[in-house]
C-alpha cells in the first residue's frame, strides 16, 4: 500500500463521485481471481487460526492430495443440535472426522455446585432434554445416598413408570430422526404422535411437557392423578400395536436396511474400550445394563429382558431400540399391576445439609449410563457435582466409525449413536 498523499485526499463534497480505489495488485499471479479464491478459501477453510497443539491435530489439519475439508454444522440439518464436525473428505469418502464440541456449554456442573440441593434438580433437567427425568434421577439418587433417605415404594414405582414412559418416547423419537437423516420424511411425524401422547400424559402429572422437574430428594413431586392414569390406560391399550406398525415402515424397508447394515461397525472390544454404554453397547454384544448390573430403585422386582445383538452396526443399534421399547411396555405393565399404596415423599428438612462424604449414583437412560458423583462438605450446597453423560462417550466413537465410509454414512452413524448435545456440552 503506497503512503497516501495529503493532496490526493478527496474533498468531502465530492466523496460520492470519486471512483473507488483500484484493487491491490498481486505480483505473484496474473489472474486476480486466483488470489481471491485463495483469500476466501483461507477464510472459509476450517483450519484453526493457531499453530496446531497436538500431534493428532497437526495430522488432521494436513491435507494430502485430493482431500478437502467439509465443515458440517453447528447448523446442519442432521447433526442433532449444535454438533460441529470438521470432515476430511476424499471425494465423498470420509478420511477423518473431528467433532468440535462446546457450542452448548453452560457450565452446569459449576452452577449446580452453587445451588442448594433442591435446586440442582431443575438445573440438570435441560442436559438430557429429550428425556429429562433420566438426568434428575441420578442426581436425586446420589443425594439420597448421601443422606441415607428411604424413598417410599410408591415413589420408586412412579419413578420407574415415568422413566420407562420417557424411554419409550425417546426411542420413538430416535427412530423418527434416524429415518429423517436417511431421507424418510414420514416416520418422524408418526413418532411425534406417540411422543406427544406420552409427553401430554406426563404434563398432566408434572405440569411440564419437556423439562419436568418432577423427581425430588426422597420421592416425587405429586401423586399419580386421574388424567395421567386415564391417558396412560388409553395409550397402553394400543401402544404395542402402534409401535409395531410404525416400526414396520422401516424394519422391512430394503433401502433402510441396506443403508444401515454393516455401516459403522463397533466391535465388542472397541465398544468397551471407548466406554460406550446403553443400547449402543448392547448392540455390540455386551449385555450391560445398569438396571441389572447395578440395580437401583425397584428394578430387581421387575421382570424384563436385556436385548443384545452381536452385529454392532447401525442396523443393530436401531433394532435394539425397537426391542427396548417392547421391554419398556412390559415394565410399565408390571408397574401398573404392582403399584403399592402409600406416600410418595419421604419427610425431609426444608434445608438439606448432608454429612460430609461422597456418593456415586447411576441410572440406565435411553442413551446409556447417566451418572452423578457428588461430594458433600456438610454445607447446603454440593462441594463437587460431576455429571457422567453417555452421549459424550458414544459420540467419541464417531471418528473411528465414520472413517472409510461415505459422507452420507456419517449422518447415519450420528443418528444411530443418538447423541443429545445438551449432555455432551453440559
Amino acid at each position, binding site marked *: 500500500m503506497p503512503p497516501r498523499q495529503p493532496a490526493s485526499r478527496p474533498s468531502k463534497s465530492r466523496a460520492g463521485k470519486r471512483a473507488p480505489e483500484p484493487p491491490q495488485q498481486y505480483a505473484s499471479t496474473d489472474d486476480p481471481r486466483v488470489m481471491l479464491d485463495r483469500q476466501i478459501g483461507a477464510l472459509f477453510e476450517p483450519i484453526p487460526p493457531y499453530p496446531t497443539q497436538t500431534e493428532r491435530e497437526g495430522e488432521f489439519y494436513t491435507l494430502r492430495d485430493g482431500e*478437502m475439508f467439509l465443515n458440517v454444522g453447528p447448523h446442519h*440439518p*442432521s447433526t442433532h443440535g449444535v454438533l460441529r464436525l470438521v470432515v476430511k473428505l476424499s471425494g*465423498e469418502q470420509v478420511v477423518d472426522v473431528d467433532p468440535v464440541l462446546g457450542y452448548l456449554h453452560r457450565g452446569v456442573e459449576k452452577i449446580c455446585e452453587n445451588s442448594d440441593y433442591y435446586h440442582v434438580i431443575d438445573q440438570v433437567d435441560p442436559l438430557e432434554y429429550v428425556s429429562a427425568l433420566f438426568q434428575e434421577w441420578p442426581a436425586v439418587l446420589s443425594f439420597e445416598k448421601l443422606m441415607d433417605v428411604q424413598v417410599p415404594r410408591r415413589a420408586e414405582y412412579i419413578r420407574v413408570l415415568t422413566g420407562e414412559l420417557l424411554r419409550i418416547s425417546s426411542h420413538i423419537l430416535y427412530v423418527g430422526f434416524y429415518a*429423517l437423516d436417511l*431421507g424418510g420424511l*414420514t416416520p418422524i411425524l408418526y413418532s411425534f404422535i406417540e411422543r406427544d401422547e406420552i409427553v401430554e400424559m406426563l404434563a398432566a402429572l408434572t405440569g411440564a411437557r419437556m423439562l419436568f422437574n418432577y423427581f425430588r430428594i426422597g420421592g416425587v413431586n405429586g401423586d399419580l392423578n386421574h388424567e395421567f392414569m386415564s391417558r396412560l390406560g388409553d395409550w397402553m391399550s394400543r401402544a404395542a400395536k402402534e409401535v409395531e406398525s410404525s416400526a414396520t415402515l422401516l424394519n422391512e424397508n430394503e433401502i433402510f436396511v441396506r*443403508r444401515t447394515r454393516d455401516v459403522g461397525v463397533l466391535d465388542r472390544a472397541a465398544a468397551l474400550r471407548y466406554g460406550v454404554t446403553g443400547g449402543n453397547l448392547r448392540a455390540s454384544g455386551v449385555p450391560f445394563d445398569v438396571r441389572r448390573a447395578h440395580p437401583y430403585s425397584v428394578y430387581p422386582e421387575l421382570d424384563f429382558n436385556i436385548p443384545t445383538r452381536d452385529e454392532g452396526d447401525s442396523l443393530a443399534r436401531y433394532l435394539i431400540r425397537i426391542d427396548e421399547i417392547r421391554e419398556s411396555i412390559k415394565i410399565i405393565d408390571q408397574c401398573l399391576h404392582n403399584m403399592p399404596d402409600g406416600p410418595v415423599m419421604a419427610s425431609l428438612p426444608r434445608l438439606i445439609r448432608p454429612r460430609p462424604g461422597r456418593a456415586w449414583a447411576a441410572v440406565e437412560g435411553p442413551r446409556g449410563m447417566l451418572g452423578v458423583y457428588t461430594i458433600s462438605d456438610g454445607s447446603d450446597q454440593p462441594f463437587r457435582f460431576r455429571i457422567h453423560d453417555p452421549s459424550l462417550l458414544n459420540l467419541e466413537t464417531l471418528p473411528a466409525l465414520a472413517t472409510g465410509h461415505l459422507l452420507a454414512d456419517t449422518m447415519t452413524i450420528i443418528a444411530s449413536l443418538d447423541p443429545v448435545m445438551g449432555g455432551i456440552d453440559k
Partner: protein
Amino acid sequence: MTSASPRRPDVRGLINASIRFAKTFPREFWGRLSVPERVAFLLVPLAMGAAIVTVIAIFWLGGPVVDFLGANLPLVRFAVAGTAILLLTVPTAFVLIYLELKVIARMNLRVGPNRVGPWGAAMSVIHGLKVLTKEDFAPTGADITIFTLAPVVTYMASVMTLLVIPFAPGLIGQDLNVGLLYFFAMGGLTVVGLLMAGWSSFNKYSLLGGLRSAAQIISYEIPLTLSVVGVILLAGTMSMNRIVLAQSGSAFDWFVFKQPLAWIIFFIAATAEANRTPFDMTEADSEIVAGFATEYSGMRFGFFFFAEYVNVFIVSALAATLFFGGWTAPFNWPWTYNLNWFHPLEMGFGPWLAIVAFVLVVAPQILGILVMLFGRGWTYVQASVLGALFTLVAVVGLVALAGFIAFDWVQGLFWFMFKTYVFVVTFVWMRATLPRVRVDQLMGFAWKWLLPASLVNLFVTATAVVLLNR
C-alpha cells in the same frame, strides 16, 4: 425573498426537484438494483412499447402482416407453441407443488396448507410471490455469470422437452420425427445447469451436489434411453405422436404389456432422472444441506424449484406417452356424439334469450328455493348466491361434458392428464414413503442391474421383432 403565489405553478421547485431526482437517481435507485433487475427495468418498457407498436402496426398494415404470417405458418406455429408451453409450466409447477404439499401432509397425518385460499390452494402461488420478492443474493466468490445462468439452463432444458409431448390429438408443440431423441437430448441438458450451479456457488456442499448430479444423471441416462429403444422398435418410429397412435385401441395395446421389463427400468431411471426420492442425491438435505441449491435464494432458487416440479410432470407425461397409450382412451370409446345440429350463430334471438334467462335467473332461483327448503336456515339472499354458484358449477360441468363427448382433443387431454397425474401422485407417494439410497448404491444399481437388464430387454425385443416380422 419571493414566495411562489398559489396560482402560479412552482416552476423553480419543479426544476429543483427534477435536478435532485436526476442527481440522486443513479445512486439511490439504479445503484441499488441487481443486474437482473436492471435488465428487467430496461426490458419491460421496451417490451410494452413493442407490444403497442405491434398492435398499431397490425391495425395499420393488417393485410400484409396476415399474408406474412400465412406464408410462414410453421414458424408461427412454433413460436405460438413455444410460448404456450413456457406459459404452461408455471401453473403446472404450482399445481404440482400444492399437490405434493397436500398429499404428503395427508400421508404424514397432517392437515397441510389450509390458510391461503380454499383448502390452502393458493399456497404455491404465494410461495412463488414470496420467492419473487426475496433478495437476489449471490455469495462472495461466486462466479456471478454462471451462477445466474445455471437456473435458466435447467429451467429451459425442462421447458423445451415439453415441446414434443403430445397432449392430445393435434395438441403437440412440434411433431418431430426424432421426437424421442430430441426429448433425451434436451433432458440431458439439465445436468449442465446443475453442474454450473454446483461449480459457481463457491460452496463445497454445492460442489458435491453438482458432482453427484452429474454422476447420477449421466449414469441413469443410459438405461433410461436403452429401455425406450424397445418401444421405438415396436412402434417403428421416434415420433411421439406415432408412438401414441401405435398404442391406440384398448388398454392391452399399451406398450407396458409388451415391454414390462422396460417399463420397470424406465420408471426407476426416470425417478433418478427427475431427482426424486429415493434418488434425490443432488439435494439430499440431511447430508449436503441443499446440494447445488445451497447458495441460491430468491427467484434464482425459484427457477430450480420450478424446474424440479416441471421435470416431475415431464417424466410422468413421458411415462404415460410411451407405455400407457398417451392420450388414447383405455378402452374403445363408443359414445362419440355429434354436435352438428347445434348452430349457435344461426339460432336467432329467441332461443338465446331463453338460454340466458334460464342460466341467469330461472336455474339459480330453482336451486336457491331447493336450498331454502332442504338447507339449514339460509336466508333468501344466501340461497340465491348458492343457487347461482351451483348453476355455475353445473354449467361448467355440462360444457366440459359436451366438449368431452363432442371433441377428440378434450377426450385426449383428459386421458393424458389423468394418466400423467397418476404418475405424479406416485412420485409424491414415493417421496413420502421411502428413505434415500446412498450414492454408491445408486451408481452400482444403475451399472450392475439396470444397464444389463435394459440390454437384455433390447436384445429380446429386437429378436422378437425380427422373428415375428412385425
